[in-house]
């Protein structure tokens, strides 16, 4: 509160005009640049806004929204996705109040709830109820976790670890009949499939990458050479070729009759690709840890495994959080490549939408919309990373 009252010393207080003069018009060349930039911004924004509000035909998005978000997932089973989203909203609410920062986090939470309510207002049918429920649960989660102790923190932490599992199992279902009939992955699509590929990619490539990084430093020659070979081979080829290999070559090597789910194959390809890059990032983190830390751990009688797990890795991983999140954001966007091998992720679905006779020539609308979706979630990950760094005190200790 005291921050609001504190004013800069007199000499530094400025009027708007003064600020303009100091920052934008302090020399002839800068004045010219300012005018030119302002003109460019104006022209671009005017074009964009005119297009968005008058020229663009958003009917293509409205009609296909469900397809873009969920692919061909059967309507009767969509409630499963909503239930996962409700859980997710609750977890996000919890996390915002535990790890968010004071006023900003309150504003952010209110913003999210308002956004959900606004979305609910726009859509119709059962989606409206679900969206309102999401907003309510987010607010409830936020309210409940206020002033939470350590126990609550670990519960929420565990929640984040098991949520992806619940999400996947719930969406896939079991058996033919029963309350949760199985939904084949050929029906998964849209944003949901993109999410699924990303989540599986992150959850599995992380431990594999760490193991590869450790293996690369191993004293056992076979382990070390295996890891180096794997990392260098995978890093040496583009992701798209790995995806093609998984889709087209793998069936040639498998005994006839054995088929592996196409989505699963893409997941494995993405995971292995990401793991190789992650391994190198983790190795960078490991190299930043001083030798004295190893010596201190060994001198206390800790085994190599314990030293790694308790002393070295926690410090190394903390150091590379920004790099890791950058990689996860890249992974999220790289999943778009599965469209080329015939899966219907966000980009794949966009292409089918564009093939609908009713909406020929709506490329700009469709791609603008899915770009917006990609951006929203990438930015969310980036925001989470910054919060995480703050709460772990990266760069402070």
């Amino acid at each position, binding site marked *: 509160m005291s921050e609001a009252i504190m004013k800069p010393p007199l000499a530094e207080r400025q009027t708007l005009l003064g600020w303009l003069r100091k920052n934008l018009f302090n020399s002839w060349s800068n004045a010219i640049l300012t005018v030119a930039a302002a003109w460019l911004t104006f022209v671009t924004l005017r074009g964009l806004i005119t297009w968005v509000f008058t020229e663009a035909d958003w009917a293509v998005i409205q009609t296909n929204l469900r397809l873009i978000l969920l692919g061909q997932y059967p309507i009767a089973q969509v409630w499963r996705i909503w239930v996962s989203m409700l859980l997710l909203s609750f977890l996000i609410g919890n996390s915002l109040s535990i790890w968010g920062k004071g006023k900003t986090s309150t504003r952010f939470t209110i913003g999210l709830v308002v956004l959900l309510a606004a979305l609910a207002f726009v859509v119709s049918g059962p989606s409206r109820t679900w969206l309102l429920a999401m907003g309510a649960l987010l607010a409830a989660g936020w309210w409940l976790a206020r002033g939470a102790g350590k126990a609550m923190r670990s519960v929420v932490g565990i929640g984040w670890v098991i949520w992806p599992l619940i999400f996947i199992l719930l969406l896939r279902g079991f058996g033919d009949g029963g309350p949760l009939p199985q939904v084949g992955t050929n029906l998964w699509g849209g944003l949901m499939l993109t999410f699924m590929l990303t989540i599986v990619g992150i959850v599995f490539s992380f431990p594999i990458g760490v193991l590869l990084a450790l293996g690369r430093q191993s004293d056992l020659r076979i382990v070390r050479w295996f890891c180096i070979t794997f990392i260098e081979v995978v890093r040496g080829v583009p992701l798209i070729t790995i995806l093609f290999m998984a889709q087209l070559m793998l069936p040639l090597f498998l005994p006839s009759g054995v088929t592996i789910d196409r989505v699963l194959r893409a997941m494995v390809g993405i995971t292995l690709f990401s793991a190789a890059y992650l391994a190198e990032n983790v190795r960078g983190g490991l190299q930043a840890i001083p030798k004295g830390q190893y*010596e*201190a751990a*060994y*001198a206390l*009688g*800790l085994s190599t495994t314990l030293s790694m797990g*308790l002393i070295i890795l*926690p410090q190394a991983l903390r150091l590379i959080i920004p790099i890791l999140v950058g990689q996860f954001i890249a992974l999220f966007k790289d999943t778009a490549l599965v469209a080329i091998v015939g899966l219907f992720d966000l980009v794949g679905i966009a292409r089918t939408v564009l093939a609908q006779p009713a909406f020929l020539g709506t490329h700009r609308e469709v791609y603008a919309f899915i770009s917006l979706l990609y951006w929203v979630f990438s930015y969310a990950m980036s925001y989470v990373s910054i919060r995480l760094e703050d709460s772990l005190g990266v760069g402070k200790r």
Partner: protein
Amino acid sequence: MTADKKPIIIAKDVHKWFGDFHALRGVSMEVNQGEVIVIFGPSGSGKSTFIRTINHLEEHQQGDIVVDGIELSHDVRNIEKIREETGMVFQQFNLFPHLTVLQNVSLAPIWVKKWDKPRAEAKAMELLKRVGIPEQANKYPGQLSGGQQQRVAIARALAMEPKIMLFDEPTSALDPEMIKEVLDAMIELAKTGMTMLVVTHEMGFARAVADRMFFFDKGEIVESGTPEQIFKSPKEDRTKLFLSQILHH
């Protein structure tokens, strides 16, 4: 300071090479239980390397080292057993920056000795009291002064209830005004009968508590004896020269 005549460390003809550099050239030493040994000598003389071979942070390539009846060999189990019985304090403290002081001290008892957490933390608090900084228990190492950090490092090593304590230039990285608080903690420890090997140039400390002193130069023990012998009547010229350099600067 009265030492039983029972060797707890036996080093016989220990050699160590770093590439072509012959860092230890046949060092032999027997340390009895409860003895306080001060090792000194010019930089590069192999004194740090020698005490680091005792808990196998450096591997010796020739000769024998036996610690408390355990032969130091390539066997990982033997190495870990010896490390459990020897505590070490480093020049650069090497505290774990991501853990609180209390966690630094209680970590090894919990994971190596398998103590339950309350017991390990009680022990840690007791040791922090002993080195005079119980009020810092919940801070992180980065928030402490150098002298405080080194005292935490001593408490951390003691938490494993070692039979031997190795000190590798424990005050060399400290500001002058903090040296005393660390030396006081070490003197107090020496008085409890702990077996200590201390690499240091703090001759006041040596005078006060050392039972024997060893002068290292060029990877060899040049001279050894009680502090009285070393300070009053050093036999070797190299010892005399070195002592005159560090005592009259």
